[in-house]
Structure formats: structure tokens, C-alpha cells
């Protein structure tokens, strides 16, 4: 009851923080620059070994979910973000708009100084803001949508395309690296097989030269037969290694087509800005909650600070005395000669 008394005695203390917080929230939201989105859709090829659910620990994970996780993970890395910025228009945009950041904090100078990273380099800004600008969601088991929110339509579309390109580039680089290792390995194996085969052929030739009566097939001669079989075996081995080598080379040559996804919808620039009503509602609600909290804290503090008696219960509780009479407040004009009970 004392809390309520304080609340109704100081209504401004309760109302003002709420109003101020709502105004600040509204002002902050109103000062935000317009934002535009651009979305690109990828089709994930489930037949590519890397996208196959059977290759994962959880066989129920969709190929699109695997790719979504991979893209989101890459977005958190500085090198990927900087590469995206460099490939798309984001780096140039931030360089030409030093205080423009996707978070919009630059609109409020104080907040900008407190929370933004605008004092850092363009690379820092990209690394800090790109994960907040990009949203990766699955559109189904094999579709991934990449949406970029940016201060201009061209930056949004360019950055979305850059994310896709950089992701493809990263995937290609990884596959190229793997294939190069395979090619090098099979090349080495092929060299060894070739040397072994040549050695076997040399031994057979030497033996046949020393024994002209023995036919080239070695039939009828145990040693010649053994040498001929060794040549046949080494030839088979050589051809097998050659086949694998050629397969690895082919894979390396076609690595660009083995990224595991195709671009279904390329990102396009939309001239319509994102609706701010939802953001306004969210910011307003946040302002309301903060304002109410501040009000409650202030009223609680005022209640705790008021150590005077307000009701007969206060006298009874603190002094242990019964109140003989309670006299209500009356206006000074209610008295005649007396100027009310002000003194």
C-alpha cells in the first residue's frame, strides 16, 4: 500500500521515465536509415557425396541444413567476411560512408560512440557487421535462402551475390586442394608402377635374349613363364594406377562444377525498403519495458526513502502506540481565523 501511495503521490515519477524511454526508442527508430533486402536461393544437390545425409553423424539432417550451417559458420570468420566485402560493393560503400553501419547506431551519435566499431578500419566494420546483415535459412530439404539487409538495394544485392560467390569459391578451393593431393599421390604411385613394369619387362627381355629357344610367351620354360607373369601383373597394376590418376586429374579439372549447389534465384536489387512498422513496434515495446522498470525502481526507492508515518498502522507498528484520532487534510480556507492546520 505504501508503494501505491508513493506511486499516486508522485505520478510524474512513474510516467516520465516511461515517456522518455518511449520517446528515445521512437526517436532512435525514426532516425534509422532505410534498409533494403536481397535474397538469393541455392539448390543443394543431394547426390554430391559431401551433401549426402549418410555421410553425417545424424542421418536425418537435410542437405540444405548442412549447407546452411556451413555458410553461417563461414560468416563468423573474419577472412570470409572481408573476402565478401571485397568481392561485393560493401567495402566500397563503407569506405565512402564512414559512419554508415548496418546496425544503424550511427544515427545516434552517443550510442554510435559507445557501441559502434566505426572507429576501426573498413575490414573491421565488415567483419563486425556482416554476420548481422546476412540471414541464412533453409527453404526446404534442398533449398537454402541467403538474405542480405543493407542500406541500399545495390549493396544488398551485390553483397548477397558476393556471399554466394565467396562460398562457391571456398568450396571450390577446398575441393581443389583435396583433388590436388589425390593427383600428386596417384602421380607418385604411377611413377612407381611404371618403374616396376619397366624393370619386369627388362628382366624378361634379358632372359629371352640369353635363351633364344624359349618363346616370348615363356611357354615350356618355368623361369620365362614366371617373368612373363610378373610383366602381366605389373602391367595390370600400372593400368589401374593410371586409371585412378586420370580420374583424379579429371576431378581436379572439373572441380568448379562439383560445389554441390546451384544458384536457383540470383540476388536482385529491390527498390522497396523494408517495412519499419515491426521494428518500430519492437523498439517501442522495449522502450516501454525499460521505462516501466525505471519507474518501478524509482517508486521503490522513494518508498524506501520515506520514513515518515502515513497511516495509523505505521504509528502502531513503529511506536507501539494506539492512534487516538486520525484527522484528514483540509484546505487552509476551511478555517476561519485559523489558517488551517498548516502550523
Amino acid at each position, binding site marked *: 500500500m505504501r508503494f501505491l501511495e508513493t506511486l499516486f503521490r508522485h505520478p510524474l515519477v512513474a510516467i516520465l521515465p516511461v515517456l522518455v524511454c518511449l520517446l528515445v526508442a521512437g526517436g532512435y527508430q525514426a532516425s534509422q536509415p532505410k534498409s533494403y533486402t536481397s535474397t538469393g536461393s541455392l539448390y543443394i544437390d543431394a547426390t554430391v557425396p559431401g551433401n549426402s545425409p549418410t555421410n553425417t553423424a545424424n542421418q536425418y539432417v537435410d542437405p540444405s541444413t548442412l549447407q546452411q550451417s556451413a555458410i553461417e559458420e563461414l560468416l563468423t570468420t573474419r577472412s570470409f567476411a572481408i573476402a565478401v566485402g571485397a568481392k561485393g560493393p560493401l567495402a566500397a560503400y563503407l569506405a565512402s560512408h564512414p559512419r554508415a553501419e548496418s546496425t544503424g547506431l550511427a544515427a545516434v551519435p552517443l550510442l554510435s560512440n559507445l557501441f559502434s566499431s566505426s572507429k576501426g578500419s573498413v575490414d573491421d566494420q565488415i567483419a563486425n557487421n556482416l554476420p548481422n546483415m546476412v540471414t541464412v535459412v533453409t527453404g526446404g530439404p534442398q533449398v537454402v535462402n541467403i538474405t542480405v539487409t543493407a542500406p541500399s538495394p545495390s549493396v544488398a544485392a551485390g553483397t548477397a551475390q558476393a556471399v554466394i560467390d565467396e562460398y562457391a569459391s571456398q568450396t571450390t578451393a577446398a575441393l581443389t586442394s583435396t583433388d590436388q593431393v589425390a593427383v600428386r599421390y596417384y602421380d607418385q604411385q604411377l611413377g612407381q608402377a611404371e618403374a616396376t613394369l619397366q624393370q619386369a619387362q627388362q628382366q624378361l627381355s634379358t632372359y629371352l635374349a640369353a635363351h633364344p629357344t624359349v618363346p616370348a610367351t615363356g611357354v615350356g620354360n618355368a623361369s620365362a613363364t614366371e617373368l612373363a607373369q610378373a610383366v602381366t601383373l605389373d602391367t595390370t597394376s600400372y593400368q589401374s594406377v593410371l586409371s585412378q590418376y586420370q580420374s583424379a586429374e579429371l576431378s581436379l579439372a572439373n572441380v568448379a562444377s562439383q560445389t554441390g549447389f546451384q544458384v536457383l534465384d540470383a540476388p536482385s536489387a529491390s527498390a522497396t525498403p523494408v517495412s519499419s512498422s515491426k521494428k518500430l513496434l519492437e523498439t517501442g515495446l522495449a522502450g516501454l519495458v525499460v521505462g516501466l522498470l525505471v519507474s518501478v525502481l524509482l517508486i521503490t526507492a522513494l518508498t524506501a526513502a520515506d520514513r515518515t*508515518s502515513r497511516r495509523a498502522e505505521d504509528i502502531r507498528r513503529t511506536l507501539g502506540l494506539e492512534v*487516538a*484520532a*486520525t*484527522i484528514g487534510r*483540509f484546505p487552509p480556507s*476551511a*478555517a476561519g*481565523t485559523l489558517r488551517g*492546520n498548516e502550523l
Partner: protein
Amino acid sequence: MTGEVVPSRLAPLSALHAARSQGSTRDKELDDAQAALQLVPPVLLRGAREVLQRIGQNGHGTYGVTSTVRGEGRTSIATALAIAEWLDHERRVVLVDLDLEQPSLHERLGLREGPGIRDLVQGHNSVEDYVQRIVGDVWLLSAGRSRDDAPRGLNRLAESTILSQLSEWADVAVFDLPPLLESVTGPEAARLCATPILVVRAGVAPMPQVKEAVERLAAPPPVILNGVRSAVPRWLRRSLGDTR
């Protein structure tokens, strides 16, 4: 006088208004009662009657109205007690300003500053010569004009026969006492009256100070909580179970 309504001093306020509205001839008593009712607001008079009922003193008595600090309504309540005693019981009441440091009762009642207690304690005069009529049979003994310091004045009062003279001359003496914590003579002045009443004004003195003031009195006093007004709307208080 036939057909005229001449209410007695015990008549309720509505009867007085009825008599007035009928254009009856006013006698002295009616005029005095009307004047007395104009001196104190009804809410204050109700509070004074409630206190008197609780204290339950009949006939002779001395009340002292004190407070923790200044500004809690001592003077108004002392006046209301005096008026209530006269209006309800037809007693002769003397209202004594014992706040010798900052006397204000005479000013509040529109009467002369003196002569009063300070002058009385210096001579061998009779109380009757120093009282001023407020209204009806309610009289004022002001603090007086003497520049004597308050503690010494109070000591002389305690040593004199003035208090016994007051008891003999009036049925009831109501003392407007100095505050207990803001006046050096507060506790000493409170000891001069049989029933000190403590006025606590809502929202003025912190409770620890009120507690300290109570401890300076010889016995736990009756308490009047003055200036109470809830800021919470009545409907909300009722819905929370507060029926007052």
C-alpha cells in the same frame, strides 16, 4: 420567541444552520457557537471530539498538545480541543500558549500578544487579569511580551502558583506546547500538563524522530495522526481490502 428555533451549544451543526436559515433572532449563545464553529474546520473538530472521547477525561483536566517538530498542527488541534470542550460540555476552557520560544497562538486567533505568561510569572497578579476571551467561555493566556528566555520563564511558571490558579479558574486548560525535538523547553513543558497529546503529521517527521520524541515524555502519549490523505483512489483501496 414563539416558533423560533434557538439551539443550545450542544445542538448539532445542522440545527444551527437551520436556525440561521429560518431567520430567527440570534442570541449571544448562538453567535458565540457560530463564531466558535468558524474558528475550526469541521474535520478538525471531529478529530478533537474523537480524541476527547478516547482520553475519557470528564470535568477538570489539563491537556498539552505537542509534536516532534514544528509544522505538525499543534496549535490548530489545541484550539479545536478547547472549542470542543466548550461546545460539547459547556466547560470554561483556557488555552495556554506554552511555546515561549515561538509563540503564535494569539496571532492565529487574532488577539493581542500580551500580557501573558511571561508577564504573569514576574509579578503576583491574578490569572483573570491576563486572559483574553476567544469566543464563548474559551479564553487565551498568551505567552506574553517579556523578553525573558524561555527555559527560565518555564522554570518560574513551574515554581509559581499559576497552574493551580488556572485549574481553579477554568474547568479545562489546554496547553499549546513547544515541539519536543525542536525546542529546548519541549519535554519540560510537557511535564507541566496531566495529559500530553502527541500530534504526528503524516509525511512530516521521520518515525525514528517521532520515537525519540515519545521517549522524552514521561509516559506513552495518546497520538493524533494529522493531515492524513491517501493519494490512492478510493475504488483501488476498496478493491485491495482497505475500507477506511
